[in-house]
């Protein structure tokens, strides 16, 4: 994890890309914690087929948590103030997921030094799985 500062970002800069995946085991583990006990449409091919999604998919809230990790590249995902995502397509297990952010605004708001960016999670063939926006509060070099 690297520390980046508010002053390090300008409009159009990219964060990432980060490549990750959600394994079968991770999805099972997540469902157990979430209270959605497996087997379910997120973990079982049979149930996924019955519910019309075909293959087991990554739960939306898990995809959102994966996206948040992008900000470990700039000081830590704990600095996220707002994360807003739209699920455009089902996210598969065990497949490379590419996540990238593009800065669309930088501003100071009271004590906060905010960067705002568009977020995109895509598949190996550039399929758009999740889109969204994030606002992150970063420290300023000048405050050190």
């Amino acid at each position, binding site marked *: 994890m690297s520390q980046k500062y508010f002053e390090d970002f300008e409009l159009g800069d990219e964060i990432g890309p980060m490549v990750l995946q959600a394994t079968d085991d991770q999805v099972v*583990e997540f469902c157990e914690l*979430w*209270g959605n006990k497996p087997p379910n449409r997120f973990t079982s091919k049979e149930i996924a087929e019955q519910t019309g999604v075909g293959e087991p998919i990554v739960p939306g809230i898990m995809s*959102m948590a994966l996206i948040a990790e992008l900000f*470990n590249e700039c000081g*830590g995902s*704990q600095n996220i103030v707002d994360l807003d995502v739209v699920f455009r397509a089902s996210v598969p297990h065990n497949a490379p997921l590419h996540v990238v952010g593009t800065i669309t605004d930088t501003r100071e708001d009271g004590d906060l030094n905010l960067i705002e960016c568009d977020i995109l999670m895509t598949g190996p063939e550039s399929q758009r799985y999740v889109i969204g926006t994030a606002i992150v509060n970063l420290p300023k070099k000048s405050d050190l």
Partner: protein
Amino acid sequence: MEFKLEYDKSLYGKEHVAGPFPVTADLIQGFSKATGESNPVYFDENVAKKEGYGGVVAPPTFCTMFVRQVKLPDIKLKFGKNRFHAGQRVSVKASITAGDTLNASSHLKEVYPKTGRSGTMVFIVWETTFTNQNGNVVADVQESFATRE
């Protein structure tokens, strides 16, 4: 032509509550591990304290895990058949750390149609506010569900 939506509008203004949800270091670490997090503030109390937190801190989307614990009523929407999770928004108001206890309160925020190339969809948005043991709001979570014609 105005799109007329039929659903139970009496649900506006009603709060649906759930909790308490005790937040433990094990739960935070389990969530972080399952989502592949490696950030030490979610695992190591000493690192978290050096960063100014009271203990192991929860990732920003952690409380989304509790949203489905709120029993939400059927809005009796007379449109579409298949409903799917269309989107989610988390607005972080304060950090959540191990030892906190959260409560959730959800209400129907809005129901609206949207028409595109593939036809009309109706979006149902629920908003859940999480407060901690001190009554402070720690996060607002919006969940959108869509139905197709």
